[in-house]
C-alpha cells in the first residue's frame, strides 16, 4: 500500500525525509528545526535520523539563515530553510531579494541556487502579531524566485520534493492552519508538474481562484451555495499557470480571487489584471477580490472578521453573479 492518511505537516516531513534519503546534499536549516523538530514539528525526527550536519539548528538570525544557505548552495548543497513564522521572513528580505533571486542571472547562468525557503503562512490560529502574515506578494514580484503554495497533504508531499529538486530558488508557502488537516497521500502517484494549477472542483457559474489556506475555504463555500463554483488551486503563484485559469474563466465568464493577504497591491491584483486582459470579452463581471483589509493583521480576536471566510467568498460570488 502506497497510500496513507497523513496530516499536511507530516506529509511535508515525509517529503523532506524522502528527498534527504535520495540526495545526501539536501540539508535542513533553521531555528529550532533540530532537536525540537520545528515549532510546528514539520522537521520532527529528521535530525535524529540524519544528524546535526544535515539538520542544522541555526543562530537566531534570518538573514544569516538565507545568506549561509546561499553559500551552501554555492558549494553544491541543497538547503531547505525554515522561516519560523511568516512575519519573520523580513529580516531575510535583502538576502532573498537582492541575492537569492538574482544570483543566477548575475552569474550569466553559471551559478544555480537550489534553495528552498519554507514559510508557514497565514492566520486563523489565534496567534499574536507577526505570526499570521501572508507575505507572498513581496516574493511574486521578485523576478528570479519561484513561489508556490501547497493546500493539502498530497500536494505537500509531492511539491516539497519538487521544490527541493528544482534548480531555482523556491519560496514555499505552507498554510499553517491546515497543518493538522488529514488526507490520503499516495506516495507512488505521479505528481502534477510543480508549476501547474489544479482544478480542485469543476463548476460552471463562477471561477474561484485560491491557493494555500484559502483553497479549503473556497471548497467549503462551494458546498454552501447552489451556485456551481469552479475552484482552482493555483499551487504555483510565480509562474502562474495562466492557461488553466483562462480556460476556466472563459467558460464561466466570472471570477473571484481569494487570499488572506491585504487586497491592496496584493497578488490577487495580478490575477485580476492578467485575467481581465486575457478574457476581456468573456467576462460578465469584473474579477472580484476577497482578501484581508488594508490594515496590519489585527489582534486575533478580530481575525475571523479580517480573514476571508465562507460568507465573504459567497458574498463575492453573489456580487459577481449580480454584477
Amino acid at each position: 500500500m502506497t497510500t496513507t492518511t497523513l496530516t499536511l505537516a507530516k506529509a511535508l516531513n515525509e517529503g523532506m525525509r524522502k528527498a534527504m534519503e535520495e540526495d545526501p546534499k539536501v540539508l535542513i536549516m533553521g531555528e529550532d528545526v533540530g532537536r525540537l523538530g520545528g515549532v510546528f514539528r514539520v522537521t520532527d525526527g529528521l535530525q535524529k535520523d540524519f544528524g546535526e550536519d544535515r539538520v542544522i539548528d541555526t543562530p537566531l538570525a534570518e538573514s544569516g539563515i538565507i545568506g549561509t544557505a546561499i553559500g551552501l548552495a554555492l558549494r553544491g548543497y541543497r538547503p531547505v530553510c525554515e522561516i519560523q513564522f511568516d512575519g519573520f521572513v523580513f529580516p531575510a528580505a535583502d538576502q532573498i531579494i537582492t541575492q537569492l533571486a538574482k544570483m543566477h542571472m548575475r552569474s550569466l547562468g553559471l551559478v544555480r541556487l537550489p534553495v528552498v525557503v519554507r514559510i508557514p503562512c497565514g492566520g486563523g490560529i489565534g496567534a499574536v502579531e507577526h505570526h499570521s502574515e501572508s507575505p507572498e506578494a513581496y516574493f511574486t514580484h521578485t523576478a528570479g524566485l519561484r513561489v508556490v503554495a501547497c493546500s493539502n497533504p498530497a500536494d505537500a508531499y509531492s511539491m516539497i520534493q519538487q521544490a527541493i529538486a528544482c534548480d531555482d530558488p523556491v519560496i514555499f508557502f505552507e498554510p499553517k492552519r491546515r497543518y493538522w488537516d488529514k488526507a490520503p497521500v499516495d506516495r507512488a502517484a505521479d505528481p502534477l508538474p510543480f508549476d501547474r494549477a489544479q482544478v480542485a472542483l469543476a463548476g460552471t457559474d463562477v471561477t474561484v481562484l485560491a491557493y494555500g489556506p484559502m483553497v479549503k475555504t473556497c471548497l467549503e463555500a462551494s458546498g454552501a451555495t447552489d451556485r456551481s463554483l469552479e475552484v482552482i488551486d493555483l499551487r504555483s503563484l510565480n509562474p502562474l499557470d495562466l492557461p488553466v485559469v483562462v480556460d476556466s474563466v472563459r467558460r464561466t465568464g466570472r471570477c473571484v480571487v481569494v487570499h488572506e493577504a491585504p487586497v491592496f497591491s496584493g497578488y490577487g491584483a495580478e490575477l485580476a489584471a492578467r485575467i481581465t486582459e486575457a478574457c476581456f470579452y468573456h467576462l460578465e463581471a469584473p474579477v472580484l477580490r476577497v482578501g484581508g483589509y488594508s490594515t496590519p493583521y489585527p489582534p486575533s480576536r478580530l481575525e475571523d472578521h479580517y480573514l476571508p471566510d465562507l460568507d465573504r467568498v459567497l458574498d463575492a460570488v453573489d456580487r459577481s453573479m449580480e454584477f
Partner: protein
Amino acid sequence: MTLDTAQPELIQLLTPEGERIDRPDYPLDLTPDEIRDLYRDLVNVRRIDLEAVALTRQGELGIWASLLGQEAAQIGSGRALRPSDMVFPTYREHGVAWCRQVEPIKLLGLFRGVNHSGWDPAEHGFHLYTIVIGSQTLHATGYAMGIQRDGSDDATIAYFGDGATSQGDVNEAFVWASVFNTPIVFFCQNNQWAISEPLEKQSRIPLYKRAQGFGFPGLRVDGNDVFACLAVTRKALADARSGQGPTLIEAFTYRMGAHTTTDDPTRYRLDGELEAWKLKDPIERVKAYLVKNQLAGADFFADVEAQAKQIGSDLRKACLELPDPPPQAMFEHVYATEHSLITAEQSAFADYLSSFADEGVS
C-alpha cells in the same frame, strides 16, 4: 553551558544561600524597607506570571511568555530606573512592566488577542512589547540619540534575550550606540535558551564579551540576584547619564518554564538542569537573607502572600472581563491621518456586516 554560576566574572551580591557579598565596585546600601519591597516585587511578579500561565491553560489567553526564574533580573534592573527613563522590552518583561507601573491586566491584551499592546509607552516610560527579535534595540538606540539631542540626562534600557544577540539589528544597535556614545544600557537576559536552542548555538564565548568588539564595557551579573542586578544596572545607568555611553549587561539566569505556554521543553532539555537552577531561585535567596538578618518574620511573609494572591485574583477577574474589540476596530489607528482606502474599506465592511442584519430582519 555550565550550571555553575560561581564564575570569576560573575557579579554577585547575594548568594543562593542568602549571604551578602561585598563588592566595593558595586556598592549597594538598601534599607530594610527597600529590601522588603524588592521581595514583594519578586513575589508579586511571579504571581502575576503564574496566574497568566493558568489563564492560558484555561483558554483565556492564547499564549503566554513566562518570566519564571527571571524575576530578579527584571526587578533588579527595573528598580534601577527613574521615571523619565525609557524601557524597550521584548515580550517577556512583565517584571519590568511592574516596576514601570503598567497595570498587569494591560499586559494580557496582547496574549489574549484583543490588542497588540495595551499601555501608553510615554506615560510609563515603557515601550510596547516587541516580538520581532532584536528590533527594539535599534529603537532604543535611536531614542537615546534623541535624549542626547534634548540635552537631557535620561537614559534608555533595551532588553533582549541570549538568542537575540545573533540578530543583525542587535549588532547594528551596538555599532550605533558605540559610535554616537548614546545613553543606553543593553540588558541581555541570558536565560540559557532561545526556545529549544542552547546558548552554544548563538555564541561560543560568554555574551557579555560581545561588547568588547564594539568598544564599550560588558559585564556579567548573576541574573538571579536582585541586589546585583540593581547595583549593576544603577551603575550602568549612571554612566549613561554622565556621558560615558553604553554598557552591555548580561544577566546570567535561567528560563525555568517553557519558552511559552505552547512550548514543550521536555523535547530538548534535561530535568536535571532545571533542578540545579531551582537551587538558585531568585526569590528564595532574598527570603533567606531577610530571615537570617531578622528583617522579616512570618507576618510579613503572610502579608506578602496575601497581597500576591489578591493581585492574582484581581488579574484573573479583569482578564475574564476583558471585552473583545468591536470588529470595526480593525480599521482604527492604521494611520494617524485620514486615509481614503481605509475609509472606503471600513464603510464597505460596515455595509457587509449590515447585510447580515438585513437578512435577520427579512
